């Protein structure tokens, strides 16, 4: 039976779960007033981008995939979050 503790996949899970809880606290406390808050938005969107990339890279095993798949999925993450942040700041 492969051990869960110390397993690299578990470490990725712990990291991603920790930053999920961090972004939850940021939104709950920093964003409690439900006013426009560029700091909260920037933090939670960047955390989401990192989490998406980590899941794609490690859980989906793209880190071992051919270059075309690495490039396509990374371009999706970078392109999507660049557009999301661009539209957010353009709409302020």
């Amino acid at each position, binding site marked *: *039976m*492969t*051990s*869960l503790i*110390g*397993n*690299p*996949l*578990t*470490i*990725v*899970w712990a990291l*991603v*779960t920790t930053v*999920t*809880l961090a*972004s*939850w606290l*940021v*939104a*709950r406390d*920093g*964003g409690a007033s*439900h*006013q*426009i*808050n560029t700091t*909260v*938005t920037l933090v*939670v*969107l960047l*955390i*989401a981008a990192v*989490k*998406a990339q980590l*899941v*794609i*890279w*490690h*859980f*989906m*095993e*793209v*880190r*071992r*995939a*051919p270059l075309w*798949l690495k490039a*396509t*999925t990374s371009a*999706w993450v970078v*392109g*999507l979050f660049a*557009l*999301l942040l661009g*539209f*957010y700041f*353009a*709409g*302020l």
Partner: protein
Amino acid sequence: MTDVTEDFTTGVGNSRPDADTRGHVPGDSSMWFFVVGDLIIFGVYFVVYMYFRGQNHELFLHSQARLSLDVGAVNTVMLLSSSLFVALGTVAARAGNSAEALRRFWTALAFGAAFPLLKMFEWIPEISAGLTPGTNLFFMFYYVMTGMHLCHVALGLVIMCFVIRNLKTSQPPKISFVETGATYWHMVDVLWLVLFALLYLMR
């Protein structure tokens, strides 16, 4: 990032050489075309959502305040945990350990099945409070995007049941099928991570 995670796909203690999986497309290539296509379609929805949000910040911010941030966060952890066990199960199946793979996939199925249950606890009070897709533009996006995602979750759970059946009945199990199911499930997880940030977290 690569050094500390050298044995991610082979798993700790597995005998398969690391180099064997390098340059390998996990699962069926046609599933990847579907996954990339789905990521692009959802990506368009996400960008359109952000555009309309920029037209009326007040409406979106006040509507967001009606959502249950806590349930959203717990559901995120459920999907992440489910994805972890799918990844561990895939590694075990590849190493030829079907019994361990089965245990991992059953655990993944349990975490995954919690997602739609929690979603019902979220949706039913909201709909009872009069928050429907017709309430305003935010709730239209909210129900359409989370509804489409929930359909993906439901399909993913069905696929996971087939993976479990494959692990039980095929000796040796078809690794390509295990990887294909895993790829689909992780995509469902990735889409939720973005939805959670857009609908619940950002301000």
